[in-house]
């Protein structure tokens, strides 16, 4: 179910320079900095852990599922989507952390 799909590009790094098409989502106080965001296909969504605890961003939205795996405090991870759709994103550890991502041209 959570196999990385071809239309999804996954990157994970702790030092991640921002580029123009990037959108950063901070994780602090066990919450995402936004509850909803709209991006274009191919644009990067960067999840930065500004918290004191570990997070694990993932989605089980059919066709868009991904798992950024554990993210230590201070770390960043990114993902981009090549096709349009709406993705329900959560932290698996802290289940109240929820984000809706709209991918639109």
């Amino acid at each position, binding site marked *: *179910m*959570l196999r990385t799909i071809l239309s999804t590009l996954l990157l994970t790094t702790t030092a991640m320079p921002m580029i123009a098409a990037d959108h950063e989502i901070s994780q602090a106080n*066990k919450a995402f900095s936004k509850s909803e965001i709209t991006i274009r296909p191919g644009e990067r969504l960067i999840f930065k852990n500004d918290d*004191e*605890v*570990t997070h*694990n961003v*993932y989605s*089980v939205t059919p066709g868009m599922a991904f*798992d950024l*795996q*554990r993210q*230590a405090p201070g770390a960043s991870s990114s993902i981009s989507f090549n096709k349009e759709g709406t993705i329900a994103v959560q932290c*698996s*550890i*802290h*289940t*109240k952390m929820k984000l809706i991502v709209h991918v639109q041209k």
Partner: protein
Amino acid sequence: MKKPLMRVLSLTLIVAAYVPGMLHSSPREEINPRETGSIDSTPAQARLEWKEKYRRPANIPFPEGNSYSKDREILGWTLFFDPRLSRTNSTSCATCHNPGFSWGNGLSRGVGLGTNQLKRRSPTILNIAWADLLFWDGRADDLEQQALDPIAAPGEMNQPLDKMIRTIDGIVGYRLLFARAYPGEPLNEKTVARAIATFERTVVSGEAPFDKWISGQDNAISGAAKHGFDLFNGKAACAKCHSGWNFTDNGFHDIGIEGSDRGRGVRLPLAAMQFAFKTPTLRNADQRAPFMHDGSEQTLEDVVDYYDRGGDVKRLGLAPEIVPLHLSAQEKRDLVDFLRTLTSIDKPTEVPLFPR
């Protein structure tokens, strides 16, 4: 209180330095900072900032689709204790969530139908109004969904829900209670679940010595317990998961307990969720031994020892927060002293007279 006491202690120690043996002859020899004062190895500002995170909420949250009314609470209270919700008419919600055991059942594992031992400990419903997902593995989205699961579970109350509704609907007193609680709505699975959930949300731990300390009564807890609080938030890092006034992040973590139960991992097949279980509240914890999702630790001291050694199993999903803590024996005692300050002395819970 804190500053004057420190001044007394300082003065006593200074005088004692010039008069050997004075501490043994002075009435002040009885002053023990572990019992009465502060043991300050932590900067005062850090403690103040931590304390701000533990203030109790003013109100119980009720969801929009199931707002509170006294009639709903009374109905839910009655259903919660009524064994006629089970197939054998012998098991109620309160069998496993017994107020005498701080809304658990005091056993390592739950006991279901007959003497069927369940694979996990019965979790408390204390302060459950603030929970997110329910059950140790988070398989229920809300209390309304959770309430029906053990009734229908073959290994637990083993009562098909349609039969349970027929039983309740056949009791005149219940029809009256439902009419008052949910006027114009049918007596069905949804209203049963909503009533039980309403009652469960009213089960809230009372004011504990810790709360009095947080609200400004400096002598409400001992110096040892205050030191334990510092350790809880600092060196021992318990607060990374047992956070906030209810001492839980409502999250899911693999804390390294031995066993084959994959917990949250069965519901959510991510690497980090394998062997992960929901963080329980620590409110009134000293009334709910044994501990952990499988009841494998018998006392609070055992639990502190468990975390001090960094858990028992090292595996891929182990939470990175689970590492050896290197606590001294005194630090462990202070942590337990602190945990005991989270217990409130609440009025005994009344059991309803069941409608016939």
